[in-house]
């Protein structure tokens, strides 16, 4: 194979941030008409490597060849000129502008609106993309925003498409749509690089998998010859167990009792309708349902952040409806809530890990001084236990890679040993190894006697980890089933709106 056949050829790319070697002599090649999956643990340097291709970062060493020609990429503009388009993990869109304005932004075309709109329409038809050009980005759902990003790079004539964790925030249906688009692009002869932590997606969409470990390029495997186990081991560097434990515990029923709960959503419609269930201590209750079935409202209502229309929430027989979070704490109830949107909530980005630990614990400490020593120890423990990739515990959280930021928050919340732990998609965006660490931590809380409400999206995980599963559809409970007995198909039917009446009894 001659050099010129590669759409992208990276040799010896190195990028250093202060003490961190984010990319260490990385080699990577992609052909035209090929979908390459880039796989690696959180913080292994995937985003950094792709940002080098898109002109955000400048490599400290190494060469880049595009279609066989050596190039220097100094800015995103250079990258566009080479027909490289990147869809960033955190979208780079101007929220107050319309889709149309965002797409035209920075292109050389005069603001000839009519002609541009026609060109965009042709593009959208070609790849069956749906987009409302007049809609403002701030009024869009995540997947709509993603479509704008895709159209944006296609409109610039990108032949090489890079997607950084595009599926992390999509529903399964939206992911399938995206994959259809990617297949159409592949057919069109474009080179695609996709980053995702979900191994089934890697196996489904890619032609080849390239693995990064601790900033080094480890291996490139043809997808046809790979499976989940091979990929995980290559990524982590050792054999790991892909089984989730479900320890047996002493259960005390009705630790949390939710009765006839109804709440309104942000749009004024009922988000939860007459929801009734209970969790024992030492039990994990999973919640399944398609996105937007009321999971968010359920969590927030129990955490005291959402107004209740009707119903009661009893924790150890005490009604906590109408109580503020601090009144709940005063009543001796300890609760931890890991919200869906955690990057905006819960952590101070410019503070280091130690100080972020203090944020949660300073109220309990006595005297006017902060107990830094203990917080530092906790921080160091977490870094080790969750293998958080950071030079040390005094690195500002903002500098960590996305998945590692998440580990800091989840670790802190779980380590406070709550009686009730509410977590929404705690593994979202985390690599396999970290996800398993999180499951283990949750199991440990269960063994300590906590009640856990676990909002999940991966049915396999729900089935393996939880004791019982509650299924929501349009804010209504379709049933509470025993996770040891129910099948994935049954869960699917219930999520689609089929009620069952039995099987929900507490067997603890």
């Amino acid at each position: 194979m001659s050099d010129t056949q590669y759409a992208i050829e990276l040799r010896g790319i190195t990028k250093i941030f202060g003490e961190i070697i984010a990319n260490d002599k990385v080699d990577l090649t992609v052909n035209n008409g090929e979908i390459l999956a880039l796989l690696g643990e959180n913080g292994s340097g995937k985003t950094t490597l792709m940002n080098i291709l898109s002109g955000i970062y400048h490599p400290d060493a190494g060469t880049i060849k595009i279609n066989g020609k050596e190039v220097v990429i100094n800015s995103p503009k250079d990258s566009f000129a080479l027909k490289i388009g990147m869809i960033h993990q955190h979208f780079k869109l101007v929220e107050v502008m319309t889709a149309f304005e965002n797409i035209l932004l920075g292109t050389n075309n005069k603001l000839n609106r009519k002609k541009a709109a026609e060109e965009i329409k042709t593009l959208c038809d070609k790849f069956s993309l749906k987009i409302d050009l007049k809609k403002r980005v701030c009024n869009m759902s995540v997947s709509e925003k993603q479509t704008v990003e895709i159209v944006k790079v296609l409109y610039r004539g990108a032949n090489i498409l890079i997607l950084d964790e595009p599926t992390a925030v999509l529903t399964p249906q939206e992911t399938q749509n995206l994959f259809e688009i990617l297949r159409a692009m592949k057919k069109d002869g474009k080179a695609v690089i996709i980053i995702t932590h979900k191994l089934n997606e890697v196996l489904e969409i890619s032609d080849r998998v390239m693995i990064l470990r601790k900033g080094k390029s480890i291996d490139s495997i043809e997808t046809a010859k790979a499976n989940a186990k091979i990929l995980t081991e290559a990524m982590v560097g050792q054999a790991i167990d892909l089984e989730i434990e479900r320890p047996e515990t002493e259960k005390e029923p009705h630790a949390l009792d939710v009765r006839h709960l109804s709440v309104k959503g942000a749009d004024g419609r009922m988000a939860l309708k007459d929801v009734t269930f209970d969790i024992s201590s030492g039990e994990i209750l999973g919640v399944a349902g398609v996105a937007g079935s009321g999971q968010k409202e359920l969590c927030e209502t129990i955490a005291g952040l959402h107004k209740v229309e009707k119903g009661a929430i009893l924790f150890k027989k005490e009604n906590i409806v109408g109580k503020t979070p601090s009144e709940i704490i005063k009543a001796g109830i300890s609760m931890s809530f890991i919200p869906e949107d955690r990057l905006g909530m819960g952590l101070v980005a410019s503070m280091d890990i130690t100080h972020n630990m203090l944020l949660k614990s300073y109220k309990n400490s006595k005297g006017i001084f902060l107990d830094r020593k203990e917080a530092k120890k906790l921080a160091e423990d977490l870094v080790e236990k969750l293998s958080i990739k950071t030079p040390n515990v005094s690195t500002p959280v903002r500098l960590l890679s996305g998945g590692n930021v998440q580990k800091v928050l989840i670790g802190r919340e779980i380590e406070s040993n709550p009686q009730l732990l509410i977590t929404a998609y705690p593994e979202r965006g985390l690599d396999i190894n970290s996800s398993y660490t999180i499951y283990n931590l949750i199991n440990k809380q269960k063994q300590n006697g906590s009640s856990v409400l676990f909002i999940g999206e991966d049915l396999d995980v729900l089935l393996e980890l939880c004791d019982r599963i509650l299924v929501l559809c349009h804010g209504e409970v379709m049933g509470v089933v025993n996770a040891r007995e129910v099948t994935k198909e049954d869960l699917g039917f219930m999520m689609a709106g089929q009620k069952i009446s039995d099987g929900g009894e507490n067997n603890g």
Partner: protein
Amino acid sequence: MANFINFFYAAILSGTPLLFGTTGEILCEKAGGLNLGVEGMMWIGAFAGFYTAWKTESVFLAFLVAFASAALGALLYAFLTITLKTNQNVTGLTLTTFGIGISTVLGFAMTENAGGNPQISSEFMSKLAPIEIPFLSSIPYIGKMFLNYNPFVYIAIVIAIVIALIFKFSKTGLAIRAIGENPSAADAAGINVTLHKYLCTIIGGGICGIGGAYMSIITLNGTWQSGGGVVGGYGWIAVALVIFASWSSAKAIIGSFIFGAFTCLQYYIGQFSFLPAFIREMPVSIYQMLPFLLTTIVLIISSVNSKKISSEPHSLGLNYFREDR
């Protein structure tokens, strides 16, 4: 009626330097730079413009030099905040202090040199007399109210409108707005963030400088008042006006003239016989205070419901560094 027309006329005249300052600052803030140096840049323009007018007697040169020297001050601000990423508030305040200081000192030197308050020649001043448009300017009321001003009143309005049109219709305007909203998105879209920020800051600063020269040359009628407050806080009013005009230079035209009316109310209130006596006879200092009181109120209201003001550029006051995360 005559009283009212005079008041209207005076309001437009005193609103004009405010309009220059506000338009200049809007240009800068649209690209995300919160330059609190407006007062300083107006002072720089005031001195540089006056000095050139005094020495060369060329209107064009006087205002060109005012523009250029204030733009130089803005360039300093741009270099510090955009390239060296210093804190914008502190840097802007420093520019104000610096501008007032250096212009005052140089003003003293100029007065010393002239042996008394320097005075621009009447020949020069006559070039800035109100433009008489045949027939039109003599239409009763309307002529005096709308068609009988010195050229810089029209220039201020034209600049404000042109900038509003640029933001509304041009590619460059879209790019600048994107930078002010989300520089990393603009950068990723291939826009040269640094270049645009520099240009907006510098040109905006220059426009502020013209406003300063307008005050020292036209408002003060060609005499440099050594030790007096030549710009006298107008730069600060302009900063508040940006918010009042919700970052639109077209709205700034109305806003400036309203504030202009407040600044000269003190001279006219006594003549408004339809008002009750106690209002007419209130101490002058109350009326002198009014524009600043209004400025304070605008700033307070805007900070109280800052969430609801969506026209404020999102990255206003924040520095951008591409490799930051």
